[in-house]
């Protein structure tokens, strides 16, 4: 019976899909572990840098500090959106994209000019249709072989150069932060002008600076932006793997459910076919008797 055959094919194809999603889940699990380790080992550096900037900024009036610290007066906002290069990771990309889209709408309503830098291919794929005129730069393929140096050279250097050229006044990073494999959190982080948690008390008394405080700060602040961009990339990468793992886990489970349902349907159909055949035989035998 044609129906039986098509059911059998269907079951086979769903089984294949399950096999693939299972493999993808394993791959993401392995990648997730690596990404998490990277996030972990990147932490001491960013903590130190943040502490140093905090200690320094406490001694300098933001109004007279380097441009990266001066509170913004302009109304041009740059959003840096971190998405994945690839899909199949649940709501990971769409959450960021949706947030950016509504932010752009609300900012423009309040009279700001918005531009967007897309890090990751997926975000750009969507935005190039809807917000094409606002997309300024696109960077892809960063997470494949992520190092601080590359993040710095590719993303941050452009940001800083554009800021120095006066193309925007405020820069905000939008990315997913890794909480656990099951939960990720959308994060907004303003990096220009830098929001500094100023330290009131410096351990061991105020240090001496060499060269001058303002010179050190002028070097440290761009570096601080770099550190935060790298941090965003690392977090986003870990979240991506986590989200993909969860998504694939769901897919495996759904495929299993489907196979079970199709199996039952297959057996029922088969049974029905046998019953009909039996009825026909019995009917035939009865009519011969009579």
């Amino acid at each position, binding site marked *: 019976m044609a129906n039986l055959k098509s059911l059998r094919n269907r079951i086979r194809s769903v089984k294949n899909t399950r096999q693939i999603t299972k493999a993808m889940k394993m791959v993401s699990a392995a990648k997730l572990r690596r990404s998490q380790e*990277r996030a972990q*080992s*990147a932490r*001491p*550096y*960013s903590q*130190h*840098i943040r502490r*140093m900037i905090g200690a*320094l900024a406490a001694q300098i009036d933001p109004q007279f500090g380097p441009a990266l610290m001066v509170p913004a007066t302009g109304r041009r906002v740059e959003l840096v959106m971190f998405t994945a290069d690839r899909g199949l990771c649940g709501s990971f990309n769409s959450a960021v994209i949706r947030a950016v889209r509504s932010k752009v709408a609300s900012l423009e309503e309040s009279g700001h000019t918005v531009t967007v830098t897309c890090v990751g291919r997926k975000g750009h794929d969507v935005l190039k249709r809807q917000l094409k005129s606002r997309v300024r730069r696109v960077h892809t393929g960063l997470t494949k072989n992520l*190092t*601080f*140096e590359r993040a*710095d*050279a590719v993303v941050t*250097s*452009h940001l800083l*150069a554009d800021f120095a050229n006066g193309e925007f006044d405020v820069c905000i990073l939008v990315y997913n932060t890794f909480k656990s494999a099951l939960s990720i959190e959308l994060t907004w982080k303003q990096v220009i002008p830098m929001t500094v948690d100023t330290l009131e008390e*410096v*351990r*061991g*008394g*105020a*240090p*001496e*600076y*060499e*060269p001058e405080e303002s*010179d*050190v700060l002028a*070097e*440290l602040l761009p570096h601080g932006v770099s*550190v935060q961009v*790298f941090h965003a990339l690392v977090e986003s990468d870990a979240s991506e793997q986590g989200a993909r793992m969860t998504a694939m886990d769901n897919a495996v489970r759904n495929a299993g459910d489907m196979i079970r349902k199709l199996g039952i349907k297959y057996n029922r159909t088969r049974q029905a076919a046998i019953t009909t055949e039996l009825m026909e035989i019995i009917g035939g035998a009865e009519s011969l008797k009579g």
Partner: protein
Amino acid sequence: MAATFQLDVVTPERLVISGKASYVSAPGKDGRFGVLPGHTPFVSLLTAGELTITMPGEGAEQHVALSSGYVEVTNDRVTVLVQRALEKNQINPEDAVREEKEATARLAGLPQDGLEAVTWSKRRDFAKICQQIAQLPN
């Protein structure tokens, strides 16, 4: 020489060295300087160069190649924050030579002071330092 301080060498990607040291000598932007335990707290910029560490109880000094960065000295702690750091035994001289060649070649084709030029000249400097350190006698 019982006095020591905590020394951490940190890069954005990992913690390279964390341990006790009794003396370090670092390549400051305005010249080389040494730090002994109990040094006045200070913060300084570092250029690419060689970090020399004396560990208590170990006779020989340790050599580490640094790219540019920062150093923070507090009473009992020295923290070196740099983009890249390699201990002498982690350096592969052939890699360093190759990196320097590549960086020099790239630099030749780039406008000076451009964004890319800065990155490549940093890499070239670091590769040079690595080669120098690799040649030091043990």
